[in-house]
Protein backbone atom coordinates (compact mmCIF):
# COMPACT_ATOMS: atom_id res chain seq x y z
CA UNK A 1 0.00 0.00 0.00
CA UNK A 2 1.66 3.23 -1.10
CA UNK A 3 1.69 6.55 0.58
CA UNK A 4 2.35 7.89 4.03
CA UNK A 5 -1.38 8.27 4.44
CA UNK A 6 -1.81 4.60 5.34
CA UNK A 7 1.47 3.42 6.71
CA UNK A 8 2.99 3.73 10.14
CA UNK A 9 1.91 4.30 13.71
CA UNK A 10 -1.02 6.56 14.37
CA UNK A 11 -0.32 9.26 16.90
CA UNK A 12 -2.74 11.60 18.58
CA UNK A 13 -2.20 15.21 17.64
CA UNK A 14 -3.84 18.45 18.64
CA UNK A 15 -6.35 19.96 16.22
CA UNK A 16 -7.64 23.50 16.46
CA UNK A 17 -11.05 24.48 15.17
CA UNK A 18 -10.58 27.06 12.43
CA UNK A 19 -14.07 27.38 11.03
CA UNK A 20 -17.58 26.15 11.66
CA UNK A 21 -20.25 25.90 8.98
CA UNK A 22 -23.84 24.91 9.63
CA UNK A 23 -24.90 22.60 6.82
CA UNK A 24 -28.40 21.86 8.10
CA UNK A 25 -30.29 22.45 11.34
CA UNK A 26 -28.51 19.49 12.92
CA UNK A 27 -25.32 19.12 10.89
CA UNK A 28 -22.15 21.15 11.09
CA UNK A 29 -18.85 21.05 9.24
CA UNK A 30 -15.77 21.68 11.33
CA UNK A 31 -12.63 22.84 9.54
CA UNK A 32 -9.47 21.98 11.43
CA UNK A 33 -5.93 23.16 11.65
CA UNK A 34 -3.65 20.18 12.30
CA UNK A 35 0.04 21.12 12.28
CA UNK A 36 1.42 17.70 11.33
CA UNK A 37 -1.35 16.48 9.06
CA UNK A 38 0.16 14.03 6.57
CA UNK A 39 -2.59 14.46 4.01
CA UNK A 40 -5.39 12.02 3.36
CA UNK A 41 -7.10 10.00 0.63
CA UNK A 42 -10.70 10.36 -0.51
CA UNK A 43 -12.98 8.24 1.71
CA UNK A 44 -10.76 8.02 4.77
CA UNK A 45 -11.78 8.94 8.30
CA UNK A 46 -10.15 10.11 11.50
CA UNK A 47 -10.63 9.47 15.22
CA UNK A 48 -11.13 12.33 17.65
CA UNK A 49 -10.71 12.35 21.41
CA UNK A 50 -12.27 14.85 23.78
CA UNK A 51 -11.06 15.32 27.35
CA UNK A 52 -13.27 17.10 29.87
CA UNK A 53 -11.80 18.99 32.79
CA UNK A 54 -12.63 16.08 35.12
CA UNK A 55 -10.47 13.87 32.93
CA UNK A 56 -13.43 12.15 31.31
CA UNK A 57 -12.56 11.09 27.78
CA UNK A 58 -14.66 10.19 24.80
CA UNK A 59 -13.50 8.96 21.39
CA UNK A 60 -15.42 8.97 18.13
CA UNK A 61 -14.69 8.44 14.44
CA UNK A 62 -15.73 10.83 11.67
CA UNK A 63 -15.30 10.64 7.93
CA UNK A 64 -13.15 13.35 6.40
CA UNK A 65 -15.41 15.69 4.46
CA UNK A 66 -12.75 17.56 2.52
CA UNK A 67 -10.83 16.36 -0.51
CA UNK A 68 -7.16 15.40 -0.44
CA UNK A 69 -5.22 18.64 -0.74
CA UNK A 70 -7.84 20.68 1.11
CA UNK A 71 -7.54 21.45 4.84
CA UNK A 72 -8.93 18.59 6.86
CA UNK A 73 -12.60 18.95 7.80
CA UNK A 74 -15.24 16.72 9.35
CA UNK A 75 -19.01 16.96 9.13
CA UNK A 76 -20.93 15.96 12.25
CA UNK A 77 -24.62 15.25 12.70
CA UNK A 78 -26.13 16.08 16.09
CA UNK A 79 -27.78 13.02 17.57
CA UNK A 80 -30.40 13.64 20.18
CA UNK A 81 -29.09 11.23 22.77
CA UNK A 82 -25.49 11.73 21.82
CA UNK A 83 -22.72 12.70 24.17
CA UNK A 84 -20.15 13.99 21.69
CA UNK A 85 -22.20 15.16 18.72
CA UNK A 86 -24.21 17.78 20.64
CA UNK A 87 -20.91 19.18 21.93
CA UNK A 88 -19.35 19.33 18.48
CA UNK A 89 -22.39 20.77 16.74
CA UNK A 90 -23.53 23.25 19.41
CA UNK A 91 -20.84 24.06 21.97
CA UNK A 92 -17.62 23.98 19.98
CA UNK A 93 -16.14 27.36 19.06
CA UNK A 94 -13.39 28.60 16.79
CA UNK A 95 -10.08 28.20 18.54
CA UNK A 96 -11.21 25.21 20.62
CA UNK A 97 -8.99 22.19 20.57
CA UNK A 98 -9.25 18.43 20.75
CA UNK A 99 -7.07 15.51 19.81
CA UNK A 100 -7.31 13.58 16.61
CA UNK A 101 -5.47 10.79 14.85
CA UNK A 102 -5.53 9.88 11.22
CA UNK A 103 -6.02 9.54 8.42
CA UNK A 104 -7.40 6.04 8.82
CA UNK A 105 -8.53 3.49 6.28
CA UNK A 106 -7.15 1.67 3.27
CA UNK A 107 -10.29 -0.01 1.97
CA UNK A 108 -12.98 2.64 1.59
CA UNK A 109 -10.83 4.78 -0.68
CA UNK A 110 -11.33 6.10 -4.21
CA UNK A 111 -8.11 6.53 -6.14
CA UNK A 112 -8.62 8.31 -9.47
CA UNK A 113 -5.42 6.84 -10.89
CA UNK A 114 -6.45 3.28 -10.09
CA UNK A 115 -10.25 3.49 -10.20
CA UNK A 116 -11.16 4.70 -13.67
CA UNK A 117 -14.43 2.86 -14.29
CA UNK A 118 -17.85 4.46 -13.70
CA UNK A 119 -18.35 5.44 -10.09
CA UNK A 120 -21.56 4.81 -8.15
CA UNK A 121 -21.91 6.52 -4.79
CA UNK A 122 -24.91 5.64 -2.61
CA UNK A 123 -25.43 7.63 0.57
CA UNK A 124 -27.85 7.18 3.45
CA UNK A 125 -28.10 10.31 5.57
CA UNK A 126 -24.73 11.37 6.97
CA UNK A 127 -23.18 8.57 4.89
CA UNK A 128 -22.79 11.26 2.23
CA UNK A 129 -19.77 12.71 4.03
CA UNK A 130 -16.98 10.45 2.68
CA UNK A 131 -18.69 10.35 -0.71
CA UNK A 132 -18.56 14.14 -0.88
CA UNK A 133 -14.80 13.90 -0.30
CA UNK A 134 -14.65 11.54 -3.26
CA UNK A 135 -16.65 13.88 -5.51
CA UNK A 136 -14.57 16.90 -4.51
CA UNK A 137 -11.40 14.98 -5.21
CA UNK A 138 -12.71 13.85 -8.58
CA UNK A 139 -13.23 17.50 -9.45
CA UNK A 140 -9.85 18.63 -8.07
CA UNK A 141 -7.98 16.08 -10.15
CA UNK A 142 -9.92 16.87 -13.33
CA UNK A 143 -11.04 13.26 -13.56
CA UNK A 144 -13.54 12.49 -16.31
CA UNK A 145 -14.69 9.23 -14.73
CA UNK A 146 -18.49 9.31 -14.90
CA UNK A 147 -20.00 9.46 -11.42
CA UNK A 148 -23.45 9.11 -9.99
CA UNK A 149 -24.48 9.94 -6.42
CA UNK A 150 -27.76 8.54 -5.15
CA UNK A 151 -28.42 10.28 -1.83
CA UNK A 152 -31.21 9.22 0.51
CA UNK A 153 -32.32 11.84 3.04
CA UNK A 154 -35.46 12.26 5.14
CA UNK A 155 -36.39 15.70 3.79
CA UNK A 156 -34.85 18.28 1.48
CA UNK A 157 -33.66 20.48 4.40
CA UNK A 158 -31.79 17.39 5.68
CA UNK A 159 -29.69 17.18 2.53
CA UNK A 160 -26.12 18.02 3.55
CA UNK A 161 -24.00 20.08 1.11
CA UNK A 162 -27.13 20.79 -0.94
CA UNK A 163 -25.85 23.89 -2.74
CA UNK A 164 -22.61 22.17 -3.63
CA UNK A 165 -24.30 19.01 -4.83
CA UNK A 166 -26.84 20.96 -6.87
CA UNK A 167 -23.99 22.54 -8.82
CA UNK A 168 -22.88 19.22 -10.27
CA UNK A 169 -24.45 18.44 -13.56
CA UNK A 170 -24.52 15.75 -16.17
CA UNK A 171 -22.24 17.66 -18.56
CA UNK A 172 -19.45 17.50 -16.00
CA UNK A 173 -19.98 13.76 -15.83
CA UNK A 174 -21.70 13.82 -12.43
CA UNK A 175 -25.36 13.01 -11.77
CA UNK A 176 -26.74 13.73 -8.31
CA UNK A 177 -30.04 12.09 -7.49
CA UNK A 178 -31.85 12.68 -4.22
CA UNK A 179 -34.50 10.45 -2.80
CA UNK A 180 -36.52 11.94 0.04
CA UNK A 181 -37.94 9.30 2.32
CA UNK A 182 -40.10 11.13 4.85
CA UNK A 183 -41.39 14.37 3.37
CA UNK A 184 -41.08 16.21 0.07
CA UNK A 185 -41.53 19.90 -0.71
CA UNK A 186 -44.60 20.91 -2.69
CA UNK A 187 -44.12 20.21 -6.38
CA UNK A 188 -41.26 17.78 -5.82
CA UNK A 189 -40.73 15.75 -8.97
CA UNK A 190 -37.72 13.84 -7.72
CA UNK A 191 -37.58 10.39 -6.21
CA UNK A 192 -39.21 9.42 -3.00
CA UNK A 193 -38.96 6.45 -0.70
CA UNK A 194 -36.09 4.27 0.36
CA UNK A 195 -33.39 3.08 -1.96
CA UNK A 196 -34.32 -0.38 -3.17
CA UNK A 197 -33.52 -2.74 -6.02
CA UNK A 198 -36.10 -1.13 -8.31
CA UNK A 199 -34.66 2.34 -7.80
CA UNK A 200 -31.11 1.10 -8.26
CA UNK A 201 -32.01 -0.69 -11.46
CA UNK A 202 -32.66 2.68 -13.04
CA UNK A 203 -29.65 4.46 -11.56
CA UNK A 204 -26.76 2.07 -11.06
CA UNK A 205 -24.25 1.74 -13.87
CA UNK A 206 -24.71 -1.55 -15.69
CA UNK A 207 -22.47 -4.27 -14.27
CA UNK A 208 -21.00 -4.76 -17.75
CA UNK A 209 -19.18 -1.43 -17.36
CA UNK A 210 -17.25 -2.81 -14.36
CA UNK A 211 -18.37 0.05 -12.14
CA UNK A 212 -17.07 0.65 -8.64
CA UNK A 213 -19.66 1.36 -5.95
CA UNK A 214 -19.25 3.02 -2.56
CA UNK A 215 -22.16 2.62 -0.16
CA UNK A 216 -22.20 4.49 3.15
CA UNK A 217 -24.80 5.08 5.82
CA UNK A 218 -26.58 3.25 8.63
CA UNK A 219 -26.01 -0.50 8.75
CA UNK A 220 -29.47 -1.50 7.56
CA UNK A 221 -29.22 0.93 4.63
CA UNK A 222 -25.82 -0.38 3.58
CA UNK A 223 -26.91 -4.02 3.79
CA UNK A 224 -30.02 -3.39 1.68
CA UNK A 225 -28.16 -1.40 -0.98
CA UNK A 226 -25.13 -3.67 -1.18
CA UNK A 227 -27.39 -6.68 -1.47
CA UNK A 228 -29.37 -5.01 -4.25
CA UNK A 229 -26.20 -4.11 -6.19
CA UNK A 230 -24.92 -7.66 -5.97
CA UNK A 231 -28.34 -8.71 -7.22
CA UNK A 232 -27.80 -6.41 -10.21
CA UNK A 233 -24.62 -8.26 -11.05
CA UNK A 234 -22.02 -6.19 -9.22
CA UNK A 235 -19.27 -8.52 -7.97
CA UNK A 236 -19.08 -8.17 -4.16
CA UNK A 237 -15.49 -6.95 -4.51
CA UNK A 238 -16.76 -3.97 -6.53
CA UNK A 239 -19.14 -2.82 -3.80
CA UNK A 240 -17.30 -1.07 -1.01
CA UNK A 241 -19.26 -0.55 2.17
CA UNK A 242 -18.94 1.60 5.25
CA UNK A 243 -21.53 1.22 7.99
CA UNK A 244 -22.24 4.02 10.37
CA UNK A 245 -23.88 3.43 13.76
CA UNK A 246 -27.63 3.36 13.47
CA UNK A 247 -27.18 6.70 15.11
CA UNK A 248 -25.01 8.21 12.41
CA UNK A 249 -21.23 8.04 12.77
CA UNK A 250 -18.84 5.12 12.53
CA UNK A 251 -18.67 3.74 16.04
CA UNK A 252 -21.66 5.53 17.54
CA UNK A 253 -22.87 8.95 18.66
Amino acid sequence: MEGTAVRGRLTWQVATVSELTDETATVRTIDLQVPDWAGHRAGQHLDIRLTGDDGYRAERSYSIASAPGEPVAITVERLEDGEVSPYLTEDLRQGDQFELRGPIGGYFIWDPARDTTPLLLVAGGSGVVPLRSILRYRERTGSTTPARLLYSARTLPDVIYRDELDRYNHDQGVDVIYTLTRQQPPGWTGRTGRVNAAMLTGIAWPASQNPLAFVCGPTSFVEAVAGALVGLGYPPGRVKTERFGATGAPGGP
Partner: protein
Amino acid sequence: MDALDGNAIGGLLQEVFGHEMTAALATCGSCDWVGPVAETMVYVRAPGTVVRCRTCTRVLMVFAEVRGRKCVDLQGLAALQAS
Protein backbone atom coordinates in the same frame (compact mmCIF):
# COMPACT_ATOMS: atom_id res chain seq x y z
CA MET B 1 -28.23 -3.63 17.80
CA ASP B 2 -26.73 -3.58 14.35
CA ALA B 3 -23.14 -4.44 13.86
CA LEU B 4 -20.73 -2.01 12.27
CA ASP B 5 -17.89 -3.18 10.05
CA GLY B 6 -14.12 -3.22 10.14
CA ASN B 7 -13.92 0.41 9.02
CA ALA B 8 -15.15 1.40 12.49
CA ILE B 9 -12.03 -0.01 14.13
CA GLY B 10 -9.52 1.23 11.58
CA GLY B 11 -7.76 3.32 14.22
CA LEU B 12 -7.68 0.49 16.76
CA LEU B 13 -6.32 -1.92 14.15
CA GLN B 14 -3.60 0.47 13.09
CA GLU B 15 -2.68 1.07 16.73
CA VAL B 16 -2.42 -2.63 17.51
CA PHE B 17 -0.78 -3.83 14.30
CA GLY B 18 1.25 -0.72 13.47
CA HIS B 19 -0.15 -0.77 9.96
CA GLU B 20 -3.42 -0.02 8.15
CA MET B 21 -5.47 -3.23 8.32
CA THR B 22 -8.97 -2.49 7.03
CA ALA B 23 -7.90 -3.67 3.57
CA ALA B 24 -6.02 -6.67 4.98
CA LEU B 25 -7.41 -10.03 3.90
CA ALA B 26 -8.88 -12.16 6.67
CA THR B 27 -9.60 -15.87 6.37
CA CYS B 28 -12.24 -17.26 8.71
CA GLY B 29 -11.05 -20.22 10.73
CA SER B 30 -14.52 -21.77 10.77
CA CYS B 31 -15.92 -21.41 7.25
CA ASP B 32 -14.31 -20.60 3.91
CA TRP B 33 -14.87 -16.87 3.93
CA VAL B 34 -11.98 -14.68 2.80
CA GLY B 35 -12.32 -10.92 2.55
CA PRO B 36 -11.14 -7.53 3.73
CA VAL B 37 -11.27 -6.86 7.47
CA ALA B 38 -13.44 -3.85 6.51
CA GLU B 39 -16.19 -6.30 5.58
CA THR B 40 -16.33 -8.17 8.89
CA MET B 41 -19.12 -7.63 11.44
CA VAL B 42 -17.86 -5.53 14.31
CA TYR B 43 -19.43 -5.03 17.73
CA VAL B 44 -17.86 -2.07 19.46
CA ARG B 45 -20.30 -1.52 22.32
CA ALA B 46 -19.22 -4.27 24.67
CA PRO B 47 -16.59 -4.75 27.34
CA GLY B 48 -14.30 -5.26 24.34
CA THR B 49 -14.49 -5.19 20.56
CA VAL B 50 -15.65 -8.36 18.87
CA VAL B 51 -15.03 -9.01 15.16
CA ARG B 52 -17.12 -11.74 13.55
CA CYS B 53 -17.27 -13.45 10.19
CA ARG B 54 -20.18 -12.01 8.21
CA THR B 55 -20.89 -15.42 6.67
CA CYS B 56 -20.89 -17.74 9.68
CA THR B 57 -20.89 -15.21 12.61
CA ARG B 58 -18.08 -17.02 14.39
CA VAL B 59 -15.68 -14.82 16.35
CA LEU B 60 -12.56 -13.88 14.35
CA MET B 61 -10.86 -11.36 16.64
CA VAL B 62 -11.43 -9.92 20.09
CA PHE B 63 -9.82 -6.72 21.34
CA ALA B 64 -9.91 -5.85 25.02
CA GLU B 65 -8.27 -2.98 26.83
CA VAL B 66 -7.00 -4.33 30.14
CA ARG B 67 -5.65 -1.70 32.53
CA GLY B 68 -4.91 0.64 29.65
CA ARG B 69 -3.13 -1.95 27.54
CA LYS B 70 -4.72 -3.27 24.38
CA CYS B 71 -4.88 -7.05 24.05
CA VAL B 72 -5.97 -8.90 20.94
CA ASP B 73 -6.99 -12.49 20.42
CA LEU B 74 -6.84 -13.68 16.82
CA GLN B 75 -7.64 -17.35 17.33
CA GLY B 76 -10.76 -17.23 15.19
CA LEU B 77 -8.74 -16.39 12.10
CA ALA B 78 -7.09 -18.96 9.89
CA ALA B 79 -5.04 -16.20 8.28
CA LEU B 80 -4.62 -12.43 8.22
CA GLN B 81 -2.64 -10.88 5.39
CA ALA B 82 -1.85 -7.19 5.30
CA SER B 83 -1.92 -5.74 1.81
